[in-house]
């Protein structure tokens, strides 16, 4: 069965497959493009990394695609001395502080929407679905007004609360799709055992929805980590900068020192890259399942 399943789309391994000629032709086209795209993806990233180890002087003189003959860590030192760790901490606080509550309350909502009944839940679900179409940019002026009038301007909470709000619609949608896939018999069995809906939610649905929970956590975490507009508008104090904003101001300060700017790009990307290396399998499979439903 397994080998049969693989036949039609990747036939090259199957000996004597009838349409071998056409198979190879398509593989050639897709393959060539796949490798070309890899080049398009990797060359800029490679260039960023090697350039960040060059001195300003060698940046202007050497072949841009060759690594520095004497790599230097000066650029990284410069960035780290410029409060990088503080910005990093701010980013972590905002990202964790927004993502974890967003996913938990979205899961509760998704559970209620799938397992519950009645007009109220239908209306709330419809509201969340409509929310998918609300662009953050369009609401930023009233958010600014609310944050100012409630005295939250220049606080990390000002970044966290709207981030949660805008993570909810998509998170509820994806989690509801997964909760819906939990067989009804399991819910029945839990009820037979005398479990409350609250207990059923955490002890049955939560573990069974885990792949989706991990996926939306990573996805929303990435969105919030890379967020730029909220920090730009809702804070103006240097000590409250998150990484993307710090990057932007850093670029303004060091526009002549390109290697240093690129070192800051690398440093802001490194933490997320480390997470990707750990969680990529989950993320990739979760994303393909979550969005193609």
């Amino acid at each position, binding site marked *: 069965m397994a080998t049969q*399943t693989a036949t039609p*789309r990747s036939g090259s391994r199957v000996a004597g497959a009838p349409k071998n000629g056409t198979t190879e032709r*398509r593989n050639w086209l897709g393959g060539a*493009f*796949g490798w070309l*795209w890899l080049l398009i*993806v*990797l060359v*800029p990233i490679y260039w960023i990394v090697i350039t960040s180890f060059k001195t300003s002087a060698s940046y*202007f003189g050497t*072949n*841009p*695609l060759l690594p520095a003959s004497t790599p230097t860590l000066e650029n990284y030192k410069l960035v780290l001395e410029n409060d990088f760790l503080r910005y990093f901490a701010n980013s972590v606080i905002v990202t964790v502080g927004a993502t974890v509550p967003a996913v938990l*309350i*979205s899961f*509760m*909502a998704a559970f209620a929407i*799938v*397992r*519950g009944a009645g007009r109220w839940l239908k209306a*709330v*679900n*419809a*509201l*969340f*679905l409509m*929310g998918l179409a609300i*662009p953050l*940019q*369009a*609401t*930023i*002026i*009233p958010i*600014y007004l*609310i944050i100012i009038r409630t005295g939250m301007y220049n606080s990390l909470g000002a970044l966290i609360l709207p981030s*949660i*709000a805008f993570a909810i619609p998509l998170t*509820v*949608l994806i989690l509801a799709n997964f909760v*819906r896939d*939990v*067989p*009804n018999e399991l819910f029945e069995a839990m009820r037979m055992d005398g479990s409350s*809906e609250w207990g059923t939610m955490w002890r049955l649905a939560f573990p069974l929805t885990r792949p989706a929970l991990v996926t939306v956590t990573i996805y929303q975490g990435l969105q919030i980590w*890379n967020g*730029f507009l909220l920090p730009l508008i809702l804070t103006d104090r240097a000590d409250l900068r998150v*990484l*993307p904003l710090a990057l932007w101001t850093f670029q303004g300060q060091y526009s002549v020192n*390109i290697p240093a700017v690129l070192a800051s*790009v690398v440093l802001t*990307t490194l933490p997320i*890259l480390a997470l*990707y290396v750990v969680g*990529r399998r989950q*993320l*990739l499979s979760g*994303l393909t*399942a979550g*969005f193609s439903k």
Partner: protein
Amino acid sequence: MPVKATPAAHTSTGRLGWLVLPALLIFVAFAVIPLIGVFVLSFTSWDGIGAISFTGLTSWKAVLTDPGLPHALWVTFLVIVLSWIAQTPLSILLGVFISGSQRYRAVLAVLFFLPLLLSAAAVSIAYKALLDPNFGLGPGLNLGFLTQDWLGRGTLAMGVVIFIIAWQWIPFHSLIYQGAIRQIPVSMYEAAQIDGAGRVRQFFSITLPQLKNTMITSSTLMIVGSLTTFDLIFVLTQGGPNDATRVLALDMYLTGFRANQMGLASAIAVILVVVGLVLAQLLQRLGGKERNSQLEGA
């Protein structure tokens, strides 16, 4: 086929309503109320600091007669259409490619994902340096076609914006397509093969039609994404040169937070919402009935 949770369990399910409250409250406070608020603010005058005063239709008159609006709409339209054209065929092609079962394709898919991890600010800053007409990749390698004033000329700057959006997002959309392609029943291809349909024929008669719903999902995300492109353009060009990349979202920011005309900016924001809703509705229509019922869920 997902197993539908039938609302047979009326005994306890009726009491689940309160579970949505935390999400509902914060969503209403920071998304729904601001959405209503922006509409209200578009009838006011506010400099961002002082008092807010109602001025009726003044802001709307000013925005609708300002030649900047049709221009920003046109630029936004260009970004949406061009980035859709640039991303969709390539995403499907890459999706078909990585859905194959060879091991190396999975490895490639892992690498394809890298651009998505970078913030738009980081990507823009890197490309700004990479495309610098004096010290970038082009002059460094002595490549004439790469040595241009990429961000100094309108059409080129627009091309760069489209390219960077594609560079960052094609991997994401190809993953969505990959997932969908894997769900197409193998038997359909087997039947086509028995009927003597070649690869190309199979692609156009089976794969593409089966991807219809995915194309709508992907296109919706793409279109909403390009409609709201802000960070990328803000960091890359600030809307320049000569407003050539001044999209609606950026126009709103510059009007509100740079020119301190929040009333005008709110009117632009309302237009942004309307454009978004119209586009989303159009795409839902394209999807037809079955899609709607699936989205509505329980």
